[in-house]
């Protein structure tokens, strides 16, 4: 299943994660945490860029897990989640947001996202969420 991940030039072993956040600092930390854990990381600064990245001619199936912020310019996280769930229903989604909103968390979890994490989140928690997402991904691959 990992053969397409090589198209991004990486030799990921654990899987490929797309992070969508408008803050370069946040993307930097997620990348650091996940690369240490052996994941390949792709970045997009907003929902629109994420959609562009995926439709860039690469096969979207290489994407194993997506982590997205909520409050972003252009296409925000909720809009992006709706889009991704419709277009790529098999890619597990994790929300990582700066603003804890119980109502939104509940509605997104009902929609089937893997986890709703609030910044600042410990590396271990983030890795656990991604691992959970990977498990779901594996089930889809079966």
């Amino acid at each position: 299943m990992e053969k397409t991940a090589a198209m991004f030039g990486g030799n990921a072993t654990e899987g490929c994660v797309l992070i969508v956040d408008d803050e370069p600092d946040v993307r930097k930390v997620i990348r650091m945490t996940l690369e240490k854990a052996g994941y390949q990381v792709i970045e997009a600064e907003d929902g629109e860029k994420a959609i562009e990245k995926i439709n860039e001619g690469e096969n979207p199936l290489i994407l194993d897990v997506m982590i997205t912020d909520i409050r972003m310019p252009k296409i925000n996280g909720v809009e992006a989640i709706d889009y991704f769930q419709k277009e790529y229903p098999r890619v597990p989604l994790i929300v990582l947001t700066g603003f804890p909103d119980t109502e939104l968390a509940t509605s997104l979890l009902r929609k089937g996202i893997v986890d709703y994490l609030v910044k600042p989140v410990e590396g271990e928690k983030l890795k656990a969420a991604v691992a959970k997402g990977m498990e779901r991904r594996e089930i889809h691959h079966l």
Partner: protein
Amino acid sequence: MDETPKIRLVILGGGKGGTALLNLLGHLPAVEILGIADKNPAAPALSLARALGITVVDDVVHLIAKTETNLIVDVTGDPTIKAIITAHKSLGTEVLGGAASKLLWNIVQHDAQMQTKLFQTEKLASIGTFSSGIAHDINNPLYLIMGLAENLLDETDTTRRREQTNDILGAVKRIATICQNLTHYARQSTPFDTTNVELNGTLDEALTIAHYATTPKDLSIVKDYANNPVITAKPEEMLQVFVNLMTNAIHAMEGKGHLTLLSECQDGIVRVSIRDTGCGIPQESLEKIFDPFYTTKQPGKGTGLGLHSVKTIVNKNHGQLSVSSTVGQGSNFQMEFPSASPT
């Protein structure tokens, strides 16, 4: 015959009492202030009076002797002035001094304190509506700090350690700046102390706060500033006015559109406009928007006191506020104040 005869008064004393009287009476249509006098040319009320176009004199006798004066208000606190007034005032002129002027001063003071409290309440309530933006702006650098610190626990490369430590310091400073901006905004103004306020700086500061109301990158901001627009006001209150108008504008645009901030100085008038390309205000609502507790926002999202406070503060500082709006195209809130800089 004039149906509403004006009370033509002169004020003796340019201290706090004189300032408060100018602030309270200066914009009442039924009152005309013929002049103000104080021996001390640096008395605070005198510069305010000049900004309002009110005659300032140091010759008390000349002012007292004006025949068209209905009322002399003595807030000098100087016991010797009473005799001078009695000696020189014309027969029909009444005098408000001593305990009577103290009573007036007390009422003015009480009124100003109540108003200041109301403005403060409105301001603090409005900060609640920024909570999501503030949380976002604090939690992002916090996440950077946490992530880098976790990494530093076992980072052995000296160059990377130094780099990441510097990033942490930068993030800490960013959070400190947010707290500084917020505490500055939340600060209560004193009831009477007006000073010269440079409005371009206040507009910029307000924009920083108003940004918490939205995701900033979808807004295009156009600034068209005049050189050094200065008015006499309380800086905290002017900041509150601009933050209110800008957050309304940003909300009306749902965070996406053009926000134009304009300042102009012309013929002793400072004009400030805050214009948006948002949803606009229907004609039938335009009359109501300044009423206290009028709001179109959901419960918890607005106090209904924002525009009411804006209008009260603008008028109190001898300014005029006007609004023009087209549904679907946007709104323009325009303010005019007497300039405090010499022209």
